[in-house]
């Protein structure tokens, strides 16, 4: 059976990302993050802790770099030698960059997992199967964005003393020691949204699914949606910025458009588009 399968479907199984891939994608969840609006207030990160059962690890472990923060708010100062200045003060403030899993379509973390605990779903998501994970941590090493976090300890007793554990979201699990984890684009919300749409006998429409970070963002800098849905706000933003999937360098008619994807030159094909920070001068 399997030999027949291979022979019959050979060309199908040989289709790589460039040829459209193995999936007939149902959705392609993506984001557009406007760094002009993002204030770096960190609400998204805490919302993520609340939604996704992220443990708090305490000062020492956090300092060691053993914390788990699926969405981290990076802050950079202007560099003196790169358009910044040798001035006495940081006159242009900081550069804030919310980094969550970029859900790359050619994710470098996926092929290196020895047990296939991470794979690409027909939703265009980079999924992590906790129960399959054996903790080789190779995926984290091979993530150029360093967005995969490892459970160095078991936190379920320490991080949620009674009754804090009652806040845990039953839609997803609490991960035990030895498991890699990362942002899922709130897959539990996607599930709920899809189920609701199915129950009502309709397609999932824009706004049915909102990730915790996008929902809580006070300036609405984060927009989440389905990139295959032509009417979705996120698709419109990508279009407006002339950013396309499947490219390592965006070919824009207007070079001044702000849209870009972080490290897209590495051909990871991320599904998160950022729009440049804007400063007066």
């Amino acid at each position, binding site marked *: 059976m*399997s030999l027949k*399968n291979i022979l019959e*479907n050979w060309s199908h*199984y040989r289709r790589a990302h460039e040829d459209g891939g*193995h999936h007939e994608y149902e959705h392609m969840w993506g984001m557009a993050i406007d760094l002009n609006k993002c204030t770096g207030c960190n609400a998204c990160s805490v919302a993520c802790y609340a939604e996704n059962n992220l443990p708090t690890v305490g000062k020492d472990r956090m300092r060691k770099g053993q914390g788990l923060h699926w969405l981290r708010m990076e802050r950079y100062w202007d560099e003196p030698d790169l358009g910044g200045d040798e001035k006495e003060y940081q006159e242009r403030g900081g550069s804030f960059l919310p980094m969550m899993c970029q859900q790359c*379509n050619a*994710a470098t973390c*996926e092929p*290196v997992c020895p047990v296939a605990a991470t794979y*690409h779903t027909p939703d265009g998501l980079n999924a992590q199967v906790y129960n399959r994970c054996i903790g080789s941590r190779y995926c984290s090493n091979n993530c150029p964005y360093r967005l995969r976090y490892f459970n160095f300890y078991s936190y379920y007793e320490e991080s949620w003393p009674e009754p804090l554990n009652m806040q845990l979201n039953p839609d997803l699990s609490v991960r035990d020691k030895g498991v890699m984890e990362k942002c899922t684009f709130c897959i539990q919300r996607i599930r709920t949204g899809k189920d609701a749409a199915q129950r009502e006998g309709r397609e999932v429409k824009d706004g049915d699914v909102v990730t915790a970070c996008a929902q809580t963002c006070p300036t609405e800098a984060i927009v989440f949606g389905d990139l295959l849905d032509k009417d979705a706000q996120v698709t419109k933003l990508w279009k407006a910025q002339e950013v396309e999937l499947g490219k390592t360098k965006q070919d824009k008619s207007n070079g001044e458009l702000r849209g870009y994807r972080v490290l897209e030159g590495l051909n990871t094909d991320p599904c998160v588009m950022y729009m440049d920070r804007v400063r007066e001068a």
Partner: protein
Amino acid sequence: MKRYYVMGLFSNFEEAFSTISEIRQHAIPGVSVDDVTLKSPIEHPEIEEILGDRGSPVPKFSLFGAIFGAIFGFLFLASAQANFLTQPQGGKAIITLPSNIVLSYEMLILFGVLSTVIGFMVNARLMTKRHPLYSEKVSLDQIGVMLELDEKNVDSLKELFKKHKVLEIREEVSL
């Protein structure tokens, strides 16, 4: 007619070789060089010139083992990949040739090695009882020339052995 096993132990290897040479040249009628079994503490590639090229099928085992390993390896990997449904990863195809080449190569070697070893064990008749005439001195420093022959030739063989300064002669009736 009874058949006998006769073995002469030599300490001087060249004498042992010339004994065999003489047998090859029909020093004793009715005794062929093909009846000679040499027991030696070391390997003698040069003895084949005297004993005749008896050949070894071991490399064939290697070849078939290796071919089997490579083909099986690739098919095994490809069918595993094609049947395990959640493997689209990193934008790569389901059946990825580069990785399968690497692993097929390893399988080629693994099966080649295993098959070679099995070929050796079968052909060298290992895992069988030692011959009753086996002498521990063979594992030390002496060389044994053993023949299976008719009773009538035993004496002439012993003569031949003695001519070549044999140290010890053992014999046994074949069953």
